[in-house]
């Protein structure tokens, strides 16, 4: 059984209640259509199970297959430096159908980032390293495609819909 390596730490983007009993980690790619499909289901999971759930997102861009996957991850991390990771994360998936090189700047403006800073940060090596570290974590945790989910540190064998179903059954 594959487990999450490294465990959740201060580098992670975490949404939800600190005391939640269920932690879900998604390894995702902003250009992957399956991740796009999973996005509204993850929202629904967070709404339905509320404070029981903590949600963590790590980047796993398939950069050769998806030309905007890595730049999109950079945009999310650059937004994170201004405290708006999740705003950018949501905006990227909500606009996945029109993903292109110019979209990031537009979304940065929409969510109210300091644009000059955003552009400067987007070029930083540190951000690149964060994304590569996320990818590395995915590889070592046994990620075999996107999205891959981990529930309380163990790889979940299924997609977002299966995850919803499993949570429903286990919290009933």
């Amino acid at each position, binding site marked *: 059984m*594959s487990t999450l390596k490294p465990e959740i730490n201060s580098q992670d983007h975490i949404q939800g209640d600190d005391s939640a009993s269920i932690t879900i980690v998604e390894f995702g*790619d902003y250009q*992957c*259509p*399956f*991740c796009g499909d999973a996005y509204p289901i993850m929202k629904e999971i967070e709404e339905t199970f509320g404070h029981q759930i903590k949600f963590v997102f790590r980047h796993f861009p*398939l*950069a*050769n*297959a998806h030309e905007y996957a890595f730049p999109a991850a950079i945009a999310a991390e650059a937004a994170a430096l201004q405290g708006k990771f999740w705003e950018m994360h949501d905006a990227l998936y909500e606009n996945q159908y029109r993903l292109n090189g110019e979209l990031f700047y537009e979304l940065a403006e929409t969510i109210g980032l300091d644009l000059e800073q955003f552009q400067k940060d987007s070029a930083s090596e540190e951000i690149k390293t964060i994304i590569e570290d996320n*990818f590395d974590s995915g*590889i*070592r*945790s*046994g*990620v*075999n*495609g*996107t999205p891959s989910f981990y529930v309380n540190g163990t790889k979940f064998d299924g997609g977002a819909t299966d995850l919803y179903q499993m949570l429903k059954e286990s919290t009933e």
Partner: protein
Amino acid sequence: MLEKGATAPDFELNATPDQKIKLKDFKGKNVILAFYPADWSPVCSDQMALYNEMLKYFSKYDAQIFGVSVDSVWCHVAFEENRKLHFPLLADFEPKGAVSKAYGVYDEEVGESKRALFVIDKEGKIAWSYLSPIAVNPGADGILEVLEELSKK
């Protein structure tokens, strides 16, 4: 299926219409053989797409990866172009599945290679082998662990 310690059977397979790959030419390097059923599975869950993102990891451990399936050279060429794959896919095409059979990972019933991984060390011995359920992409964590171990020797 061949196990750890066995000598990896030599082979000569086409990577492109006019390029043949001989295993024995890779002595002194670690070799990863990824047998898989067929080209063209969906990209986000595709094993070859995953390995394609990992080439710098493999080169760090002085390892060369080859994908192997019974698809023809022309099919591989189209698949590689479409997915922008930067490593060779070998055509185990004629006689069909001969190399897969030599490694013990040919599925006679469907006429395809099983989904199986081999890591071959620099002396040409199998250091690790793994058979994955046909529908499950085995990822790369197993490969990396073995390469890491080999690099400590």
